[in-house]
């Protein structure tokens, strides 16, 4: 690990002032990813600005949503009674990730900005366009069981690792940002970039811009939302495929739905194509199959991860079927 300077910020505004003053500064949340990457010399900041003193509050909005401070820990968010009741997929997604120890440390802001666990990105002896733009990608011809099938490019196939972010894109969360130029908000579906030819540019954040909060809009159907994760062992592993889902029925018609996938995308993958093919359609097996096919048409699997296409297909159909069944039973109750 290279030597660095350390500052603790009292709030977001001070953090930005410190970051503007310092060369090559990085914001430090719980450190569960950044400290590890610094130890591997993948990250080499000259200054760390500790932003864990930012808001740790979860507050209700007038409309029935929630605003989550960036420094709220993953464990605190998953344990919040309002999240468990109103947005159960978010609690389940967070609890499906990492270990209890890591969830106690990791922050909401840090979770969104964590970096891929692509083994080639981590191993400085290999070529990686994300680590070193233009160097090449050893993952393309390597072991790609854990790599993406959506949003990939000839430069990068690294998977976005977050479970929490998959739930947040399904919920249409908004990210509150603060930067040298002021405050702004971004739809979380717009936060992460697909790699294209610049896999080193992972988000739409401007230099020194900081996530200060995440806002969950009110969403009635989220009460029956779920998150299901398939992985190589029962616990403490990254997703092979995960599915965040919810539906709203109007009689036998799918009035509305949200569907997002983890473990398969270069960014947390909102299944826009499937959603469009579900809305306003009869709640039948044929509708589900057609919708899932519409999404998977964009999949670009490699030999080592072709299985993810069929796994994603079966998981999406199983989950959507269960949500429809839950909605019908909920409607009767």
């Amino acid at each position, binding site marked *: 690990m290279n*030597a660095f300077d350390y500052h603790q910020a009292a709030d977001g505004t001070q953090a930005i002032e410190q970051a503007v003053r310092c060369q090559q500064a990085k914001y430090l949340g719980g450190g569960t990813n950044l400290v590890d990457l610094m130890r591997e010399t993948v990250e080499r900041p000259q200054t760390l600005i500790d932003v864990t003193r930012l808001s740790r509050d979860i507050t209700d909005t007038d409309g029935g949503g929630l605003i989550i401070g960036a420094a709220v820990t993953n*464990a605190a968010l998953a344990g919040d009674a309002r999240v468990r009741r109103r947005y159960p997929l978010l609690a389940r997604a967070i609890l499906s990730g990492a*270990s*209890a*120890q890591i969830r106690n440390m990791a922050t909401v802001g840090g979770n969104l900005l964590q970096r891929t666990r692509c083994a080639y990105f981590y191993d400085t002896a290999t070529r990686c366009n994300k680590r070193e733009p233009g160097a090449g990608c050893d993952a393309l011809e390597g072991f790609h069981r854990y790599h993406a099938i959506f949003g990939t490019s000839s430069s990068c196939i690294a998977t976005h690792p977050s479970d929490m972010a998959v739930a947040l894109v399904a919920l249409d969360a908004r990210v509150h940002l603060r930067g040298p130029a002021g405050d702004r908000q971004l739809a979380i579906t717009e936060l992460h970039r697909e790699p294209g030819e610049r896999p080193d540019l992972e988000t739409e954040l401007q230099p020194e811009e900081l996530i200060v909060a995440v806002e969950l809009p009110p969403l009635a159907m989220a009460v029956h939302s779920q998150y299901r994760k398939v992985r190589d062992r029962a616990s*403490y592993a990254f997703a092979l495929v995960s599915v965040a889902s919810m539906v709203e029925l109007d009689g036998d018609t799918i009035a509305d739905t949200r569907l997002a996938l983890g473990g398969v995308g270069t960014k947390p993958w909102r299944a826009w194509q499937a959603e469009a093919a579900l809305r306003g359609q009869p709640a039948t097996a044929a509708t589900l199959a057609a919708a899932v096919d519409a999404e998977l048409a964009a999949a670009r699997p490699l030999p080592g991860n072709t299985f993810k296409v069929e796994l994603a297909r079966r998981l999406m159909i199983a989950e959507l079927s269960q949500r429809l069944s839950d909605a019908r039973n909920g409607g009767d109750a």
Partner: protein
Amino acid sequence: MQWTINGQVREAEVDFRTSLLDLLREQFQLSGTKKGCNQGACGACTVLVDGERINACLALAVQYQGREITTVEGLAEHGKLHPVQAAFVEHDGFQCGYCTPGQLCSAVGMIGELERDLPSAVTADLAAGQIEWQRDELRERMSGNLCRCGAYNGIADAIAAVLAEELGEEIAR
């Protein structure tokens, strides 16, 4: 810099790169906390900070100034083993012992989470205020602590015995 470690205020000036794990072991000779993977994968370095379990290897010591840190050396009180420690002895919760300090601190933290009715990934009804304690809950909640000897059955038995004793929660095998 200053920390409260096992109830004692301790001071040291350390490089910003120093992890909480290295601070405990190298500066304060508290070598009970173990360095396994040093990358957050094994849980051998688990300690309690203000009662919550964390991986000391991923924690920069500078970030934890002023906090109350409890290591395995701080679990016993007045020369008497902590109930979790006694249960590990009683139920063969270890073989080589290297992961044991992390397992013990993690189990103590987990019991605290139970007392606060916090859910896990296998909790069926997340909206329910009270957790129904099954054996799969216990194993899921301890998944951040690896044991290469494979003493998991003994570890689960030990923790289940403590829960039965302290909380009246009988957990079926």
